Structures are given as structure tokens and as C-alpha cells.
């Protein structure tokens, strides 16, 4: 079959092989498109009014509350100085949810002992990056959280 001139048989083989590939492609393509989920309907919120008050955060044993911020999870903590600080609650190491440790004055990730300060900066342990910080604005009783630059 290694003739310089293509034979009728080799031409037919190419046609058949091409047909088989095209058929497989037309079966696999819709299946592949199907398993990729459509984008979720949830918008990426840039500002949010929290459904609780400052007193709720301060009454919490850990002096913190988590909240859903669009598609992500956020945490808002009350520092000893009485300041409210909010940031993303998903550890930058391996996506565990972090928690406030008022006894140590840090944000702590229980999975691998990662530590952040209250501004979300990674200070020890495995986390490679700081947690995204959110801006907190208090208007009367209401607390507004927004992404920086929004």
C-alpha cells in the first residue's frame, strides 16, 4: 500500500475513515456541550445590604457572621477596637471556609492552620494570597458591604 500513486483502495479507506471520524464527532460534540453547565443565573453582586445588624455580630460567640455575597461567601468580624471588617471567607489555600478567632485576634483556617490578620492578609501557614477585602459602610442600623473599587 506504500505506492507513490494513491490507489482506489487507499482513497476509499480515507473516505471511510473520514466518515467514521465525522460520525463520532457529531455524536461526541453535542454530548460534550451538554455536560458543560450553562452559566449560573446569579449575578456577581458588587454591593449588598447585610440581613443582620452590628449587635448580631457582637453577640455572636466568635464575634463574626458569614453572608452570601453573590456567588461567594463573605465573613464580617467585629474587632476588639469595635471596627467592622469584611472579607471573602474562602481560604486561598484550598477553599476551606475561614473563621474569626477573637482569642488570637486573627482570621483562622481550621483545615491546615492558615492564618490571616483582620485585614485579610496572610500571615502564616499555607495560604498563598490574602483574602479579598470588602469595604464596610454603616448607615444608621444598616451595614453595606461592597467590593473595593465598586
Amino acid at each position, binding site marked *: 500500500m506504500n505506492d507513490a500513486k494513491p490507489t482506489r483502495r487507499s482513497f476509499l479507506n480515507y473516505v471511510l475513515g473520514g466518515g467514521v471520524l465525522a*460520525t463520532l464527532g457529531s*455524536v461526541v460534540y*453535542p*454530548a460534550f456541550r*451538554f455536560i*458543560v*453547565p*450553562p452559566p449560573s443565573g446569579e449575578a456577581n453582586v458588587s454591593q449588598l445590604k447585610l440581613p443582620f445588624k452590628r449587635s448580631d455580630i457582637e453577640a455572636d460567640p466568635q464575634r463574626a457572621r458569614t453572608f452570601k455575597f453573590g456567588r461567594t461567601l463573605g465573613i464580617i468580624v467585629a474587632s476588639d477596637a469595635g471596627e467592622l471588617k469584611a472579607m471573602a471567607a474562602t481560604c486561598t489555600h484550598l477553599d476551606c471556609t475561614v473563621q474569626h478567632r477573637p482569642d488570637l485576634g486573627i482570621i483562622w483556617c481550621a483545615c491546615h492552620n492558615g492564618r490571616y490578620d483582620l485585614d485579610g492578609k496572610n500571615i502564616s501557614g499555607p495560604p498563598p494570597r490574602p483574602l479579598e477585602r470588602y469595604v464596610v459602610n454603616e448607615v444608621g442600623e444598616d451595614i453595606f458591604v461592597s467590593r473595593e473599587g465598586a
Partner: protein
Amino acid sequence: MMTAPSETKATSKSRAHNWLDQRFKISALVDYMGHKVVPVHGHSIFYYFGGITLFLFIVQVVTGILLLMYYRPGADSAYESVRFIVSEVAFGWLIRALHSWSANLMILFAFLHMFTVYFTHAYRKPRELTWLSGVGLLALALGFGFSGYLLPWNELAFFATRVGTGMAGAIPVIGDELLVIMRGGEEVTGATIGRFFGLHVAILPALFTVLLSVHLIFVQRQGMSEPLEWQHLPASQKKYQKFFPNFLYRDLLVWLIALNVLALLAVVFPDGVGPIHWPLGTKADPFAPPPPVIRPEWYFMFAFQALKLLPPHVLFIEGELFGILLFTIGGLIWALVPFLDRKSQVNQRSRLYYAFGYVVLAFIIIMTFLGYVAE
């Protein structure tokens, strides 16, 4: 055991072949397949029907697994998730249409396969157990149809399931208990979806796979059945073709045609056509009155219609119960035909069982027809 190096240049293909051959004795398998032949005669087309049914089952497995990625069983989520599939997911409408079309065609070809086997007396010795496993597969396929129908939790499915499970309640002694087990309670609710879902995606596939393997091993071991008339032919007049590769290539060509027909139907009629349709429609509402026409799927229609035609009382028995009894006995006879048909065991055509087959076939066709016309 080392094989002697062959004279030809060792290509990568033959090296891979050798590697496998040394470990799994592939040559023996190819040899075995090489001996297998398929009779060539006027009714050779019947040899493809089982294969088509198998192909449609494979389509069901693939499309079913894809649907599982988005389907969420439950009264609050089932309907919504199916609507999400057909309206939001890329090609979701296509996958659902393929699953529905392939389901209906699989049952159709299973019936065709069964009747061609029946009328060629291919169930005769030594193939009694192949027939029996086939009857079991048909029963499971009907179970797939019945359990899958409810899963979208739309109006159509809800009432059909209510009527269908309600019939089980007519069975004496165990009826009430059976009904509660089937419905997961007194009524068709979200609990019923859970049961039917488990049945449809776990229990039935497992049983079907085992029985299908048995069925196919039997076919491979015994080869293709030869027509009864061939007994009296001289060997010179019997024509055969090799199973491997000749028949297998033809089988694959038929599968390719089946795939194209399926794709065409799914694209042109994604919601089905005529009496065979499955539009999503409105969500099931247990408190709403039923729609004017409650119809089972077409392959249950003959039984449904026959039960409707029975008088309220036959002798001392309730009509519906009498019908169920009759169907049970009929089904048993049908499954045991290879053992009951004495003539087939000595390779003779039995007029009685031939006639019985035609009666059953005519009954199914007439009742199905009546079911759709007498409304």
C-alpha cells in the same frame, strides 16, 4: 510462551496485538469468532433485530447518564430540572428527545425481535433459556418505560402513574400492600418519584445488564438459529456468511442507519409525534382534575384497553381482577412456550403454537388500535 518472530516487519499494531495475545489469547477468540457463521436465506433480515434493540439500549445508557447530570428527583425539583434541561442546557432538548425516541423504538424492536423469533420457532431446543432470558429482558424494558415516564413529574406522567399503580391495587390479598410499596405511600407523591428514580437508574439497569450479558453469551455460544426448512436441504444448498467480519460489518451498518433515523426523529419531532408524544406540558398538581384523556404509553395500551372492555363481573370475579389473572396466565404460557411446544423440541413446526402466536399478535394489534380509536 514466546511466539516466533513473524516474517513480516513488526508494525506497532502487530506488536500491540502480540502483547495482548500473549496475555489474553486473543487469537483463540478471533479463531472462535471466525468459525461462527450466519445462515443466508430469505428471512436473514430477522438476524438484525436483536442487534438493533441492543444498540438502542446502548443509546439509552449514554443519554440516560447525560440526563442524570441535571435531573433532580423530588416533587419540588423534578419538573423544574427537566424544564431546565430542555430550555437552558446546550443540546438538552436533543438529549431528552433521543432518550424518549430511543426508549420507544427499543420497546418496538424488542417486540419485533420477539415475534420474529417466535414465528421462526427459533426458541426451540437448544435455545429455550435464551428465549426465557429474552422474555425477562422485555419485562425489565417495560419496567424501564413505566418508571421513567413519571420522572418529569408533569400532568401526563402523574395521572398515568396513578392509574397504572392503581391497577396493582386490584390484585387480591397483596394488592393494597403492593400499591403502598409502589407508591411509597397511599398516594402518588414526591416519595413515588424517589422510588421510581431508584428503580429506573439503579435497580433496573443492574438487573438488565446481568440478564443482557447472559442473553448475549447464550447467543454467542449457540450461534444463529437455522430455519426449520433447512433440515431437509442438502448441505450444498445451505448458504452461510462468516459472522466475523462480514456479518459484524453489516450489523454496524444497520446500527449507523439506526443512529441516523434516531437523530432525524429527535431533531424533527423532539416532543414525539401523533399518539407517541412526551411534551413536558404543565407540572403535576395532585389537586387538579385529570386531563380529559389519560393514556398509557402505547406499549401498555393493549392491556389497558382490554381491561376497559371487560364487564364489571366475570363469573364471581371482578372484571379487572379477571383481566389481570388472564394476562398473568397468558404471560406465563408465552414465557414457557419452548417447554410446552413439544413439536419444536423435535424440530417440527407446531400448528397450534403458530396459531397461538397469531392470536396473541392480533390481540395486541387490535386492542392497541381500539385504544386509540375508541375515545
